[in-house]
């Protein structure tokens, strides 16, 4: 009996030690919209194949992703909020920031288009109409990258959205699209989430293409100076790889529901 226990214990210890043999995984904080786009499912296995580094993805809101970076809980951050990224680097929490691709935001709304924004070319005009008509607009309201972008757009149009028509949901993009669909409201979403949800919600794409709606993605290593115990080497490898030709090609050729989603920024 005692012998058996010894054997089992030995095996357990051996098994627990095997974990140490793997290269230390790279912890990456990113936004839910990035993960929902499915691009990471293509990029990360390719990265692992080449470098042997396993990437563990933690998908949260932009605010929390950057906070995890500030607290040194992750090694690398991939987000899309230019001003917040610049602040993050300026305050010394991040290094080696690279903008490596972009996609765009779109305005969606009820198929009946009560505010009549369908034929507007500029997003400013479209949002002005929504505000003037007091048509329901569901905002993320969660301080995410998308929410920050939406606030910038209202501000750029010199508008202050307020009132019962402006619904601050405080939820993720998918949930906000469902709410807009249920409440017959407008919303602003990233194209990736829109493509993933357009078959499931009762909404139509009503405004896109204005360059104000561009959405650049950045990748930032967590500062080794602030947090010496982070896996900076792997983070730097990730950043170099994602800027490389093969990775940029992967991004360019990625299709979601048959449509291109991201445009690489570093392809020569």
């Amino acid at each position: 009996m005692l012998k058996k226990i010894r054997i089992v214990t030995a095996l357990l210890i051996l098994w627990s030690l095997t974990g140490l043999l793997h290269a230390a995984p790279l912890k990456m904080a990113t936004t839910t919209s990035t993960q929902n786009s499915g691009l990471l499912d293509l990029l990360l296995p390719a990265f692992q194949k080449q470098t042997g580094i396993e990437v563990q993805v933690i998908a949260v809101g932009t605010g929390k992703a950057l906070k995890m970076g500030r607290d040194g809980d992750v090694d690398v951050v991939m987000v899309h909020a230019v001003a917040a990224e610049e602040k993050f680097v300026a305050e010394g929490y991040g290094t080696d920031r690279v903008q490596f691709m972009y996609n765009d935001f779109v305005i969606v709304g009820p198929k009946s288009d009560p505010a009549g924004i369908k034929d507007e070319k500029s997003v400013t005009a479209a949002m002005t109409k929504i505000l003037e008509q007091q048509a329901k607009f569901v905002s993320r309201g969660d301080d995410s990258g998308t929410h920050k972008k939406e606030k910038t757009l209202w501000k750029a149009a010199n508008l202050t959205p307020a009132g019962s028509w402006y619904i601050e949901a405080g939820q993720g993009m998918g949930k906000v699209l469902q709410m807009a669909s249920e409440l017959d409201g407008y919303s602003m979403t990233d194209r990736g989430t829109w493509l993933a949800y357009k078959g499931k919600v009762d909404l139509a794409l009503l405004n896109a293409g204005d360059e104000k709606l561009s959405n650049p993605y950045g990748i930032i290593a967590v500062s080794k100076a602030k947090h010496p115990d982070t896996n900076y080497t792997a983070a730097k490898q990730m950043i170099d790889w994602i800027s490389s030709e093969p990775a940029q090609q992967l991004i360019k050729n990625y299709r979601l529901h048959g449509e291109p989603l991201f445009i690489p920024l570093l392809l020569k």
Partner: protein
Amino acid sequence: METLSAASYQALYLLFSGDSALWTIIGISFSVSVRALIYAAPLAILTAFLLAYFSFPGRRLLVSIFNTALSIPAVVVGLTLYIMLSKAGPLGEWRLLFTQDAMILGQICLCFPLLVAMAHATLQSTDRRAWETALTLGASPVRALLTILHEARFGLIGALVAGFGRIIAEVGSSMMLGGNILNYTRNIPTAIALETSKGSFAEGIALGMVLLFMALFLNIALGQVQGKGAVSQ
């Protein structure tokens, strides 16, 4: 990493400086959960009474069903009601989704089985002779019922407190049915979920502390009531 104590300190500041956004959220939480409890309690206690005092076919099965319903995750209740209330769902015409009424409905569904199960356990231990004596003495069934409920009041209050505890702290169904809309359906638990996702831990902890204070207050109050009950016997 901001320390827990720093976040707690900021939390206390937010609470006592009368931060209006914070107090709005607290107000919504209370008004929704109290209404849900008020709507659910009478029927739940009546159901528990029927289960405890009358035998009819399927009674044991019903008791088991209510006990099982205690372990239904809030998010499943939320999802089921969501499907029913959605525009495409059977009750879509009511246009209740993402309103306080939908949250109340969800919370009623959540606390009902708990109220029935706990009230049933309490009423089971009351003396059946009190009921029979009251009836023999010419009391109407309603009057006799009130006598029984008065006998069992401490256990019933305990059931109400437990039911309130379950719904004031649940996030799954409120998030799905209310939608976490600012100044309308954002309550304490959904706000905590939101603040956490934003990385604003101080606000999250402040709200968590409100919940804890409330639970403490309720339990002290209950302890007082029960203590007096013991003395008077």
